[in-house]
């Protein structure tokens, strides 16, 4: 497989990859550039790869048409809480399943893994009833609690468990001899060494929460409470037609911060994901 390639082969490979890149890169690029074009230029053909004229008033319109700043905050703080909560719960559970001997641990682990087979799409009707009973409809509680305890956190627990299983047992034994109890071993030895796995868990969880769509439209009813994915689909004119330029401006704003974080930390991103224990 890995022989040194001839120059012709190299050129061919680069060419192939550049062509393949188009559907991956063009939509994002087009979204960003179109969001600063006047609406008439968006439909110009062939499309301009760089905007001929800039029109930033659409960005202002995003905030006029909807409480977009508030919606942005909603999405951001929900995703932050879900990510933090999942990291705490799944690193503890993953550690215990990997490292601590206690009765029925395997049986309990199987029960927890069941959660992977039961995505919230399956249980959305009773979840709606449960949160209705708790008076939490049109609040953010369902969007926080369901992912922290449901399938996404089970996946996170699985990833953490795989990581901790691979951690040398001797390190913990040394720590026990050094005088540490379980909680301290977890906190000062196991967790600091689990940063790659925690990073992967954080990325998965954040993106999952950031992209949630079914839950918000089921649980939320007032625009003040909306999250970004839901808000993006609400930019329509009086006839229900999409207001493309405004939608693209709003979409760009939801995409840019995560993209920037990704570009800065792409190495940690990619390597974190590669170390999720899914390598087999």
């Amino acid at each position: 497989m890995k022989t040194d390639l001839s120059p012709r082969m190299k050129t061919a490979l680069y060419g192939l990859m550049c062509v393949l890149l188009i559907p991956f890169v063009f939509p994002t690029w087009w979204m960003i550039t179109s969001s600063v074009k006047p609406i008439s230029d968006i439909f110009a053909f062939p499309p301009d790869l760089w905007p001929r004229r800039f029109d930033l008033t659409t960005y202002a319109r995003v905030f006029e048409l909807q409480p977009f700043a508030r919606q942005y905050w909603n999405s951001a703080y929900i995703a932050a809480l879900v990510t933090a909560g999942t990291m705490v719960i799944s690193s503890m559970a993953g550690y215990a399943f990997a490292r601590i001997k206690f009765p029925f641990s395997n049986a309990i682990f199987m029960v927890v893994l069941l959660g992977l087979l039961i995505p919230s799409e399956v249980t959305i009707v009773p979840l709606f009833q449960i949160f209705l009973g708790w008076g939490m409809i049109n609040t953010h509680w369902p969007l926080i609690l369901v992912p922290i305890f449901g399938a996404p956190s089970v996946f996170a627990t699985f990833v953490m468990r795989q990581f901790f299983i691979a951690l040398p047992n001797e390190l913990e034994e040394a720590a026990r001899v050094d005088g540490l109890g379980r909680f301290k071993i977890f906190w000062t030895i196991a967790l600091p060494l689990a940063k790659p796995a925690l990073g992967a868990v954080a990325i998965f969880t954040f993106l999952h929460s950031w992209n949630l769509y079914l839950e918000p439209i089921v649980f939320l009813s007032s625009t003040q409470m909306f999250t970004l994915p839901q808000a993006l689909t609400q930019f329509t004119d009086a006839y229900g037609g999409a207001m493309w330029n405004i939608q693209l401006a709003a979409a760009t704003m939801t995409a840019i911060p995560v993209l920037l974080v990704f570009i800065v930390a792409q190495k940690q991103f990619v390597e974190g994901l590669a170390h999720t224990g899914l390598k087999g």
Partner: protein
Amino acid sequence: MAPVTLKSVTKSYGATSVLHGIDIDIADGEFVVLVGPSGCGKSTLLRMIAGLETITGGAIEIGGRVVNDLEPKDRDIAMVFQNYALYPHMTVATNMGFSLEHRGGSKAEIAERVQWAAGILGLTHLLDRYPRQLSGGQRQRVAMGRAIVRNPQVFLFDEPLSNLDAKLRVVMRGEIKGLHQRLGVTTVYVTHDQVEAMTMADRIVVMNGGKVEQVGAPLDLYDRPANLFVAGFIGSPAMNFIEGIVTNEGLVALGVTLPLTNSAPLGTKATYGIRPENLTLAADGLPAKITLIEPMGSETQVTMTLGDHTITGVFRERIAARPGETIHIRPDLNAIHLFDASTGLRIE
């Protein structure tokens, strides 16, 4: 410093029994090596002394105190692990001071102890490094440093040299021994390498199949092995064994009669043991046909057939003969071991 006493210690995992009643008395300041083939239970026993494995039955005392139900941290022991178990995310200094940190030492006190230990082990210039930046030998020293800063009553070593290359192993062997002489702390050392056991121990405990085969000073074990297992385990190359029957002429075996000095009852079925280095070349000796010659420079190791038996000899002389030719050998009459064929026990 403290003596360590094991009283009928047993260990089982469910129905599987791995240690069947171990009794060992380790004196204050003694260097004891537990040695045996893999799976003999030596590491399990060490880990039970450390408190890393629960004790199924019997009692372990450290300094006269039963420690069966004590956490490792409350046993006042320090342990050096096979793979060093250095915390990868901490510097050498933090690694070494870590246990003191959790025992409530003051910062200055910890720094002083770490400096002291680093001085002894020649680690002073490495204190700010991380484990991944160290060589195998340096990591080994840090692992030892971590053990000595605490000034524990007992040191436990679990095959600490098995990850080092042969040359470094000899160096570290000397260092550990030197450290013991300097600090005089009771030490229990586990290894599968009988050379390590012979060179380092005050006393050796030979274990096999979850039982103690023999306890004694290295040369006692070499000179007077209590049974076939110890005889075969201690010494390299291993002792030759030939089965036969004791008669007036000596031990009669298939195709050969071997000289005897022991006064075993006539007609006893016995195993005759002679170490390769206790065979000498002699013109009037027993004829043996050479199958393999391995010159080592200082000595020559020869594999040969004596009667129907394949045996090994180690000779100081250089041997000009070639495989297929016959040489004449004689066992050193003062170094013959005789074991009962049915019990495997030594016959005096």
